[in-house]
């Protein structure tokens, strides 16, 4: 991460409210993302995890509150402006451009095509070897795991300092989830990651800090190690029982 110190906060979300239609989804949510760390937003379905990420990237407008990225308020900016500030977004459901080829997906993600981007592209292709193999194939024909890898690769090919990843394990086989975990662990060497995840195994494998969301608010926050030890908290908010573990 170079320039950022360990405790430096790169993203601060302060008392943000978001409506989808008439539904009040985020009800004053506050969380932050520290440099050199993976912050995980976890919680049950409908808790507002994905809405929180979409609000940060600007796809959903916040009605109240502040979103501060590297000391600058961004809640009024359009999504493309936020993305150009260095925030990458990996949407849920393997959000790729299915009618484009793998190459076209990667190239469309490259905001500038210079030597630095070319180097990052090569590094990304080394990280995700399958993408190199299916370079000319239509992205819609890839398997679920490959689509997820492509979605992540697309987000890191630019010089992103913050990566928002929405439920990367959704719909993937456990063995593929392990590959995604491995990828995120490598990405965190270069970018700060905010991860939305319902899969506790994945969240605990990559996360450093956690925020449990419940009904559009932060119910608990802390170090992931503490959450792993706290079975009562897991059971209350994440619906994990000892038998499931």
């Amino acid at each position, binding site marked *: 991460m170079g320039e950022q110190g360990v405790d430096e906060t790169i993203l601060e979300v302060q008392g943000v409210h978001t409506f989808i239609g008439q539904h009040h989804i985020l009800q004053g949510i506050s969380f932050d993302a520290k440099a050199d760390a993976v912050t995980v937003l976890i919680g049950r379905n409908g808790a507002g995890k994905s809405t929180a990420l979409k609000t940060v*990237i*600007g*796809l959903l407008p916040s009605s109240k509150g502040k979103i501060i990225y590297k000391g600058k308020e961004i809640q009024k900016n*359009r*999504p*493309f402006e936020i*993305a*150009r500030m260095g925030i990458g*977004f990996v*949407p849920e459901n393997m*959000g790729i*451009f*299915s*009618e*484009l080829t793998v*190459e*076209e997906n990667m*190239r*469309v*993600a490259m*905001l500038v*095509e210079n030597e630095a981007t*070319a*180097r990052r*592209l*090569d590094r990304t*292709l080394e990280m995700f*070897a*399958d993408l*190199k*193999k*299916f*370079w*000319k*194939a*239509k992205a819609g*024909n*890839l*398997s679920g*795991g*490959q689509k997820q890898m492509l979605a992540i690769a*697309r987000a890191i090919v*630019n010089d992103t300092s913050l990566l928002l990843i929405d439920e990367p394990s959704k719909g993937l086989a456990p*063995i*593929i989830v*392990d*590959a995604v*975990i*491995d990828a995120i*662990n490598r990405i965190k060497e270069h970018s700060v990651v905010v991860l939305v995840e319902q899969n506790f*195994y994945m969240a*605990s*494998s990559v996360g450093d800090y956690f925020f449990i969301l419940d009904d559009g608010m932060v119910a608990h926050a802390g170090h992931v190690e503490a959450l*792993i030890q706290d079975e009562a908290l897991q059971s209350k908010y994440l619906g994990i029982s000892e038998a499931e573990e």
Partner: protein
Amino acid sequence: MAGPTPVQIFHEEEKKRQYRSGTFFLKVGLLLLFLLVPVLFPAFKTIDLAMQIVLFAVLVASFDILLGYTGILSFGHGMFFGIGAYCVAFLIGKYGMPSYTNLALGFLIAAIVSAALALLISFLTLRVKTIFFAMITLAIAELAIILATKLTGFTGGEDGISLNTPGIFAVSFNMGDFMGLEITGRVFTYYFILFSCIALFLIMLRFTRSPLGRVLQAIRDNVQRAEALGYNTFLYQSISITFGCIMAALIGGLYAMWVGYVNPESSLGVLTIMLDVLLMVIIGGMGTLYGGIIGAAFLKITQTFLPDLQHLAMDLFPHAQLLHNVLERWLLLFGILFILVVIFFPKGVIGSVNEYLLQRKMAKPTISPSSFTPTPPGNRP
């Protein structure tokens, strides 16, 4: 950097393959065919058919930039074709003498007017959802037809404008025979329009294969995802509409040169132009550009020759009244042919063939999707 990167290797391999592929030879063959039409088939009906196919193929390609590459359905595209036709007709017909300068000015004004109008429409209507955008453009196109019909003093009204092309393009121009081909103004006009259409098609091809074209396709797939990648989708959509409309206006100008006459119905008509263009893009395949050639050829050939089937049937089977009655309603046959094409080529001819070839390629073991190789699982907590 030490050696070529994987991406550079891919591009080198692609360049090598480009001039060896079957489609490359098919394109060259098609180009030769259109080049030789006046020599091999000097009858006006055949030359006119070839010209109509070329003009509409390129018009469909310009519409495909909007619909197939950007996901924008505009019923106003035919209006820009009409604007181009009228601009050329004004400059060398109603308000000016037929000269090369006026002809060039006609095309320039067509491009400027259509660009300004396309930008205005984009800014006013792009923020609404797709179906509303289509309806607004339909209303604007209908308004243009009403204006062209009612402003008789300015546009010639329903009577339209007749125009004479200048110099070597004039109908009366004749240079005599060359290798059995009579070199007339028609022949010069044919080749001028053919080469202009090829140039416009290549520009559109370059446009769609540029980084900008890739962004447009991403926007077509998912606007929000494209925006989240850092693209001002509104700006890109406006560029696409403006570019497609300028192309349509230039093709309209070429069309006016060929037919020598413009009126509201033949140049601006939503039913006469837009319906044909929509059918052509569906038949050929959206998002392919080349699909326009297949669509235009199918529609123009059937429209030219199906009505003749009745006369043929009368000569061959003079007493088969039922057959005569059926063939008299040739649009019915055309409808059946169209349904068959849609059934057998659901993504258009080019789109379906591309899909078939891709599936065959995917079936080969070298690119099997089952080859995902994850790294060994880490320690579970």
